C-alpha cells in the first residue's frame, strides 16, 4: 500500500495527520461523554421526571461552584488512573490499584503518626513512604506474573482484599492511630499534612502539582526513553519484544512496581491532605470496603486512553461530575441514583475506542469534502485497534465522600 508520488506531499502533511489523530481521540472522548450524559439524563428522568432537568444541570455545573474540591478529589484518581494506564501500556491490566492505594495510605499514615520529623520534611517522608507501600503492593503481583506466569488480574484482585483487610486490622490494632469511639483514624499532626493552597473550606493542596508533574514525567518516560520504547513494544507485541531480546521479566516487575508506587502516592495524597479546620485532618474509616478510588482509576485511564496527559484531563472531568453529583442531591436524588448516572457516563467512556473510529470517519469525510483527499488513511484502519476495547471494565463507583471527612 504505497504510493511514491505522494511521499513528498506526505512529509509535508505529517504534522497535520498526527495532529488530527490526537484530535480525533479527543473528539471521541467528548462523544462518549455526551452519549453518557444523554443516558444519565434518561435515568434521572425515570427516577424523578420533574427534577431531571435541574438535576442534570447540577451534575454538569455543580463542580464549577466547588473547583477547589474538584481538584482535591481529582488528585488521587489521577494517580490511580496513571497506575492503571501505565501498566496498560505494557499490556498489563492492573486491577489492583485499590490495594496499592490503601497500602500507600497506610504507610503514609504510619509515618505521619509515628515518625518524629521537623515541619517541612515530615510530609515529604510520609509521601515517600506512601509511594513505597504502593510499590511493594504492585511489586508482588509483578513478581508472580514475571516468574511464575500467574495472571496479574487475579493476583491483584486478591491483593486488593489482602491489602484492605490487613490495613484495616493494622489500623484498629495500632494504638495512637485509631480512635475507637469514633471508629476512625486520629487526626494527623500538622507537620505530616501537605501544604495547603490556602483556599477556604477545601483540602486542596500542592499534591495536584506533584501529580501533574508525575504525569508529565511518565509521558516523557513512555515516549522519549528506551524503557518506554520497550514497555510499549511489549504491550503491542510480546513475542516480538522477546525476539528483540528485551528483558520481559524485568520489565513486568518494574512496570508493576512503578504502577503500584503511583497508586500508593494516590493513597498518600488523599489522606495527607490538610484540613481547613485547625487541629483536624482527613481521616480513614476502616469498614472493610475496598477503596473505590482504585476502581475509579480504571475509568480515568479508559477515558484518558491510557495516555498520561489524557489522564490529567479525564481525572479532573470525573471528579467534576462526582462533585456535581453531590449537588444533585438538592433536587431529591439519592446518592445511589447519582452513582448510576456517573457509572453510565463512565461506562460509555469505555467506548472511546469505538467512538474513535466514528470520529475519524466523520473527520475524514469532512476533510475530503473540504479539499482533495490527502495521503494515507485507507490502509490505516486496522492500526488503531487497541486491546483497551476488549476490556469492558464496569467501574463500581460509590461515594467518595466516605473517605474524607470535612
Amino acid at each position, binding site marked *: *500500500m504505497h504510493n511514491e508520488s505522494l511521499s513528498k506531499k506526505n512529509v509535508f502533511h505529517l504534522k497535520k495527520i498526527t495532529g488530527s489523530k490526537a484530535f480525533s481521540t479527543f473528539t471521541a472522548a467528548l462523544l462518549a461523554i455526551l452519549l453518557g450524559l444523554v443516558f444519565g439524563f434518561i435515568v434521572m428522568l425515570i427516577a424523578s421526571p420533574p427534577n431531571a432537568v435541574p438535576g442534570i444541570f447540577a451534575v454538569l455545573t455543580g463542580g464549577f461552584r466547588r473547583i477547589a474540591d474538584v481538584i482535591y478529589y481529582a488528585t488521587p484518581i489521577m494517580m490511580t488512573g496513571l497506575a492503571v494506564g501505565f501498566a496498560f501500556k505494557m499490556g498489563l491490566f492492573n486491577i489492583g490499584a485499590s490495594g496499592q492505594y490503601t497500602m500507600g495510605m497506610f504507610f503514609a499514615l504510619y509515618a505521619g503518626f509515628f515518625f518524629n520529623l521537623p515541619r517541612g520534611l515530615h510530609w515529604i517522608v510520609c509521601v515517600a513512604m506512601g509511594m513505597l507501600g504502593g510499590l511493594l503492593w504492585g511489586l508482588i503481583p509483578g513478581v508472580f506474573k514475571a516468574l511464575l506466569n500467574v495472571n496479574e488480574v487475579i493476583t491483584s484482585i486478591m491483593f486488593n482484599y489482602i491489602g484492605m483487610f490487613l490495613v484495616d486490622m493494622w489500623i484498629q490494632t495500632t494504638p495512637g492511630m485509631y480512635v475507637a469511639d469514633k471508629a476512625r483514624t486520629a487526626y494527623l499532626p500538622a507537620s505530616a499534612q501537605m501544604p495547603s493552597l490556602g483556599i477556604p473550606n477545601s483540602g486542596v493542596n500542592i499534591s495536584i502539582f506533584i501529580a501533574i508533574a508525575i504525569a508529565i514525567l511518565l509521558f516523557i518516560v513512555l515516549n522519549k526513553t528506551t524503557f518506554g520504547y520497550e514497555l510499549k513494544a511489549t504491550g503491542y507485541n510480546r513475542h*516480538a519484544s522477546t525476539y528483540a531480546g528485551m*528483558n520481559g521479566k524485568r520489565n513486568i516487575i518494574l512496570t508493576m512496581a512503578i504502577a503500584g508506587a503511583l497508586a500508593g502516592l494516590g493513597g498518600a495524597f488523599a489522606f495527607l491532605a490538610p484540613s481547613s479546620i485547625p487541629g483536624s485532618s482527613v481521616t480513614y474509616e476502616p469498614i472493610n470496603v475496598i477503596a473505590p478510588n482504585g476502581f475509579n482509576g480504571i475509568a480515568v485511564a479508559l477515558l484518558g486512553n491510557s495516555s498520561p496527559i489524557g489522564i490529567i484531563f479525564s481525572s479532573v472531568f470525573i471528579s467534576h461530575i462526582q462533585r456535581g453529583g453531590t449537588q444533585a442531591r438538592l433536587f431529591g436524588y439519592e446518592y445511589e441514583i447519582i452513582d448510576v448516572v456517573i457509572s453510565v457516563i463512565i461506562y460509555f467512556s469505555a467506548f472511546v475506542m469505538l467512538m474513535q473510529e466514528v470520529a475519524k470517519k466523520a473527520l475524514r469525510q469532512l476533510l475530503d469534502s473540504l479539499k482533495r483527499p490527502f495521503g494515507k488513511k*485507507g*490502509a490505516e484502519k486496522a492500526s488503531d485497534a487497541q486491546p483497551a476495547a476488549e476490556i469492558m471494565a464496569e467501574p463500581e463507583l460509590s461515594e467518595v465522600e466516605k473517605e474524607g471527612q470535612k
Partner: protein
Amino acid sequence: MEDNYIIEMLNITKVFPGIVANDNVTLRLKKGEIHALLGENGAGKSTLMSILFGLYQADSGEIRKNGKVVKINNPNDANALGIGMVHQHFKLVEIFTVLENIMLGDEPTKLGFLQRKQARERIMKFSQQYGLEVNLDALIEDISVGMQQRVEILKMLYRDNEILIFDEPTAVLTPQEIDDLMEIMREFARSGKSIIFITHKLNEIMAVADRCTVLRKGKCVGTVNIKDTTKEELSRMMVGRDVSFSVNKADANPGEVVLSVRNLSVPSSIHKTNAVRNVSFDVRAGEIVCIAGIDGNGQTELVYALTGLERPSGGTITLCGRDITRASIRNRSKTGMSHIPEDRQKHGLILDYTLEENLVLQRYWQPEFQNKGFIRFDAMRSYATRLIDQYDIRSGQGPVTIVRSMSGGNQQKAIVARELDKDHKLLVAVQPTRGLDVGAIEYIHRQLVSDRDAGKAVLIVSFELDEVMDISDRILVMYEGEIVGELDPKTTTVQELGLYMSGTKRSTVKEMSYA
C-alpha cells in the same frame, strides 16, 4: 460468446483515500475454467476479490452473473449467487469439529435441533466425489493446515457454490499437498465449477490454470491463455521488467566455522518427545546452508533453540567460539547473530510501531541510538532513512509509516534490512521469501547471497524445494527431528532431495563425522 461467461467484473474501480486499489479492472470468468489472478503484493488482487465477495463495494463498474447485472452488498449476497471463497487465513472455529465448522451458518435443523446426521451424509457425498478425505469428528485445532484447507473447500461445496475463489491456497501447503490440491481443482473444473485462483507462484499457474489475468499497481495488464504464454512472459507482465528465476552466484568459499551445533535436542511444545533429536552440524563463514524438509519436522524448534526463543533439552550451540547454549537472546545478538524469523508479524515486527521504530528494534539500546536511556530520535530518523533508501523499502509515509499499513513484501524487506545491516557473523533466516512475489523473492535472494559474499555464515530454513536448490551451497535435510542427509545442490536432484525429505532415504555417515 458472451453467454460463456459465468461471472464478469467489468471496469471495476475502487479508490481508497490516497490509493487507487483497482483502476478500471475487467475480469471475466468462463464456466468450468480455472482462471488465475496474478499480481505482486499490493497489486489489488485482494481488493478485487473482496468486491466480488461483497466485502467492499466498487466505486464504479458492474458485476454480471450469466450476463445479468447483480449487486453484491455482503458475503451473504455472494453466497446466494453461488460464490464461495477460501481465504488465505482460514475462517474456522478452532474448538469446533470439522463437521460443525462445515455446517456453521447453514445448519439443517428440525424444531430447532441440529440434524448432524443429515449434514454428515451430505458432506460425505462431496468428500467421496472429489476425493477430499477428512475426519469429520476431529477438532480443527488438532488437524494440519492442509486438512483445514480441505474443510474450507468442503464448506464451499456444502453451500452449493459454483464459483470458487482460492486466495493463495498453496502458501501454506507442502509439495505433496499442493499436488493434491491441483488435482482437486482440476476435478472441480471438470465437473463444471469455475475457479478463480489467486497466487503469485508461476509454476502453479502454468500447471493448472486455463487463463490468467495479470494486475499491476491496481491496473489490469491483460488476460492471456496459459497455453500461449510462458513463465517469463507472465512475470514480465506482473513486475513490468525481466526477472531472473535462478540465483546468480559464484562458488562458495567457506572459511572458519561460525556456528557449531552438537547433539542438540529441543523439547516439543505439543508432544512429550523431543522435536529436535541429537542434531549436529556446522555452518562456515561464506557459505549458505539450507535446512530442507517438510514443515513440522523440527525446523521451527531447531531455530528457536539456536536463536534463544526456546531452551534446548540437551547439546551445545557454539557461535564464534563462544558457548551460547544458555545465553540470552540479547547476548546472542551481541555475539553476532541476526535472525529473520519465520513469522514476520508475530516475531519480526511490532505492527503498531512506525517503520523507523521497527528498524532499530535490534539496536535501540546501542549508544548510537540512546543517550542515558533517552532515545536519540535524530539518529533513529537518519538511520531509518538510510536503510529505507538502501533497501528500497516502500511505504506511504517513509520512516513514520505505521508498519501494519505496509505490504507484506515491504514488511519483509524492513526485517531483512534491519538484520543484514546489524553487525553480524551469522544470519539465520527462516522462510525468508514466504508469501512474496517473484520480484521481492529475487531481491531477497540477492541480498542473502551478497551477505554470504561479504563473508557471513548464512543458515536458511526453507520448505520450498526450488529455493533450496537455487540458493544453497550445502543442503541438510531434516526429517522427524533428525538430520537425515547432507547433500550438494550441484550434484543432487529434486527427486533425490524429495526422497530424503519424505524419510524414504537417509544417510548416517555424515552425522557420525561430527561426533
